């Protein structure tokens, strides 16, 4: 069953049409990689899905929730916006950890603010708030442990390597249990020798059955981890299929060109 559904998505920046009608779905528990040369619209697509950009036209839904619909002119309430936002998670190319907070705090902060707000609305007693916050901390520690950083809980981002920072960023996104976890070139800012540790974490998440959308330049990794690969070119999906189909028997001429150029490099 499709968990993420994108219909006829269009996005224009100034006079450049970056997305020219994107349609695709991701089934629950499957991993979809998006490849393509820079400027093909991959990142814009991801930013539209995660709500960082507003598409001009189209519809996006996650599960039974419509997170974006250009025909619906109704103004969303803050709560609705947030609910939409939390359907998806995003891991950035440049990590974007909060530098002034420890690893643990980076992971707990957003969830804690959320729970505190909830408690305020329901007028929970103090003891309950405390209990829920320590619960959050426990969950956070487990998640941080699962990305292999349990010995770095009290470290600050500037004390970590790029690979470690990116793993914290993944943990931070996981903390809010998004239905679809998106990655925007998660290893592009890393030295080649440490991309492996980040890819290992993503691979593990794939094996756990998480629904993920990964924009990447790591062809080998995309081949190995994805259930499906989408090739974008010039604002449209030029080809999609299983990794074997896309990488070993590409039909689209642009894709053939792209693959031979990247594999040669």
């Amino acid at each position, binding site marked *: 069953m499709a968990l993420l559904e994108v219909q006829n998505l269009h996005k224009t920046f100034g006079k450049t049409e970056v997305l020219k009608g994107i349609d695709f779905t991701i089934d629950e528990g499957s991993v979809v990689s998006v490849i393509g040369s820079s400027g093909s619209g991959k990142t814009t697509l991801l930013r539209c899905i995660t709500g960082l950009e507003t598409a001009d036209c189209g519809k996006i839904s996650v599960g039974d929730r419509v997170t974006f619909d250009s025909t619906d002119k109704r103004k969303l309430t803050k709560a609705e916006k947030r609910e939409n*936002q939390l359907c998806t998670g995003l891991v950035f190319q440049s990590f974007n950890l909060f530098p002034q907070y420890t690893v643990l705090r980076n992971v707990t902060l957003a969830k804690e603010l959320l729970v505190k707000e909830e408690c305020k609305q329901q007028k929970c007693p103090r003891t309950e708030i405390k209990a829920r916050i320590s619960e959050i901390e426990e969950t956070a520690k487990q998640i941080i442990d699962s990305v292999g950083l349990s010995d770095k809980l009290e470290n600050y981002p500037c004390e970590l390597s790029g690979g470690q920072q990116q793993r914290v960023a993944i943990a931070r996104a996981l903390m*809010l249990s998004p239905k679809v976890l998106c990655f925007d070139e998660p290893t592009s800012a890393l030295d080649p020798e440490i991309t492996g540790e980040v890819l290992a974490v993503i691979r593990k998440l794939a094996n756990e059955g998480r629904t993920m959308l990964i924009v990447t330049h790591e062809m080998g990794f995309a081949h190995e981890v994805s259930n499906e690969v989408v090739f974008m070119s010039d604002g449209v999906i030029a080809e999609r299929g299983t990794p074997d189909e896309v990488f070993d028997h590409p039909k689209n001429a642009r894709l053939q060109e792209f693959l031979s150029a990247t594999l040669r490099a």
Partner: protein
Amino acid sequence: METFISVSTELLKGFGENLKLFSLTLLLALPIGLLITFCSMSKFKPLKWLSKTFVWIIRGTPLMLQLFVVLYVPGLLFNYPIKIRFTAALIAFVINYSCYFSEIYRGGIESISRGQYEAGQVLGMTKTQVFFRVVLLQVVKRIVPPMSNEIITLVKDTSLARVIAVAEIIMMADRFSARGIIWPLFYTGAFFLLFNGLLTVVFGRIEKKLDYFRG
């Protein structure tokens, strides 16, 4: 004959006025500056335009002139003269320094990468939460050096209040020189030096305290 001690007490009285003006200006201009920053960065164009023009006028004219304007203009225009000269000085200083602070704040806020805001947004944080929980401390860290510069300038600028006859330290010293005793005038420098030395140490401490993170 004036003794060193009696001169010191007189000057200290004057410097008390400087310090009062300094601390009240700081107390008021720090938050008002932030308010002006928000106006200057507002998406509502008229407000932004108004605020930018205001900052341009205040930064583009001498503080000494502004002191006269605050002292005289209310009386000339509305027949409501400001009777207490210290209040007039305080108003002029607060307006002037709020504008300078607002520009420092703006620089600091705009220097924070968009990624920080976006990271907050995708984590479901509200704009207010992102500002106060994520951005603010990073801004503070970045603006400590330019702010300390400006605040040290403020200490020295307080002596400008003498042009509207606020009895600050240099005016006190000038009373001695009118009687032919010049050295108290030079002696005033020691007061400024000492106090600014103290401030330098404090700002150094703050910088060090924020040294634990990079960003």
